[in-house]
């Protein structure tokens, strides 16, 4: 830091104009909390599984959020290699971080549920569990790669390449893990051809939880994206400030 950094009269407007409170994120967190109050207090307990079934209202929607986030990373990776737009790179970074966190939540909730219902914390024979774990490894590698490169243009290209190859990898992992005959994972209840076979209160809680977590996913990606914008602005200021 040189003294010129401190003597600058006014920082760029973009750094000042940012609203201090992230309302979208607050609304998202509040709706997740509301869904959980409903899930715990106002939704019937499942007859055979008992209270542990309530993890479903966290497990399914976070899985959806994780898939949205990872999908956004793959798409924005393609966009970045195509248009070289730094916004695409920042969006890819933001959604990869959110995806990594959600995948971890999905696995943790699944693991707790499996401990009660299957009697084991981890089940290698369950294809979806293995798929989620390997997907998580790819996302973590993506984030570590980003952290290991200083030059923004190079970081953008490398991580976009990894993002696209990772998207190509998913079908292969899917094919490989589904080869085992054991399908222990609960089969679709809501999205099956005929009518959903669960009580209307549960169905409503599910739909609300999907909505709340989709909002949370978008809000977290947005918040993380804005941190990226600030960070890049700050880096640009440091560079120009050092020379002044």
């Amino acid at each position, binding site marked *: 830091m040189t003294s010129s950094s401190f003597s600058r009269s006014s920082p760029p407007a973009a750094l000042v104009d940012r609203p201090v409170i992230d309302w979208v994120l607050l609304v998202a967190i509040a709706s997740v909390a509301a869904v959980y109050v409903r899930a715990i207090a106002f939704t019937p307990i499942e007859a055979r599984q008992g209270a542990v079934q309530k993890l479903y209202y966290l497990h399914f929607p976070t899985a959806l959020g994780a898939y949205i986030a990872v999908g956004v990373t793959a798409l924005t990776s393609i966009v970045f*290699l195509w248009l070289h737009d730094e916004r695409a790179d920042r969006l890819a970074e933001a959604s990869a971080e959110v995806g990594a966190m959600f995948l971890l939540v999905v696995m943790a909730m699944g693991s707790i549920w499996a401990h009660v219902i299957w009697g084991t914390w981890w089940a290698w024979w369950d294809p979806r569990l293995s798929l989620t774990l*390997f997907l998580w*490894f*790819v996302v*973590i*590698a993506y984030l*570590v*790669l980003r952290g*290991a*490169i*200083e030059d923004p*243009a*190079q970081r953008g*290209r*490398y991580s*976009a*390449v*990894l993002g*696209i*190859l*990772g998207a*190509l*990898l998913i079908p*292969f*992992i899917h*094919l*490989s*893990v589904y*080869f085992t005959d054991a399908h222990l994972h609960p089969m679709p209840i809501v999205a099956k051809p005929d009518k959903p076979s669960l009580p209307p209160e549960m169905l409503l809680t599910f739909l609300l939880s999907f909505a709340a977590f989709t909002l949370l996913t978008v809000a977290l990606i947005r918040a993380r994206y804005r941190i990226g914008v600030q960070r890049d602005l700050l880096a640009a200021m440091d560079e120009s400030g050092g020379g002044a």
Partner: protein
Amino acid sequence: MTDRADLQPPGVLAAAWLVVRKDLAIEYRTRTAFLSAVVFSILGLTIFYFAWDQSVVAPGDRAPGVLWVVLTFSALLGLQRSFGIEEHDRGIDALLVSPISRESIYLGKAIGNLAFLSAVQLVAIPALVLFYNLRLGQPLLIVSGIVFLAMLGIVAVGTLFSAMAVNTRLAELLLPMLSLPFFVPILMNAAQAGARVFAGRPMSESLAELKILIAFDIVFIIACTLAFPFTLEE
């Protein structure tokens, strides 16, 4: 003076072959990577022999698993070096200014890595047969074929990641982290098909795994060839 006709740039495959020859010549003269990968493989075979209770799991039942673990990690040793040697004296710059396409550099590096890894396996697989008392015969030949299919995929992905990893702050630490998740479907299918062949079951039971393996090789050889130019400095 040289004849102007000689100065035509070589075609994609001819240029790739020049890169292969360059890399293999360096390896032939130094032999550092080859010897360390061979010694590593044999050490791995012996360590894994003692990693299980001999009275519970028979050596013959362990052999297929040991084969894949040793193959994976010796591959990482070779892949590390593939672009590592170009960093010394910035050899990669000379490759980039030479009149050959970037795809040729990738294909040349990948073929060189495949040759390197095959040579290591030519020592490691006989050592496995020796140490684990495997029977010679048709199953071993089929498993060697599966090993080759697996190596194609490993080399396709690993060569690209080697080029990326050397340009990062973490360098050699990053390559396994990037590559291993991509090796998962290769190893899962190759190991399952291989174990069945070793157990004397007919090939027809493993066709699905082999199809996935071949599809992986095709998809990732094409994808990584196309992606490679993006990993080089502009």
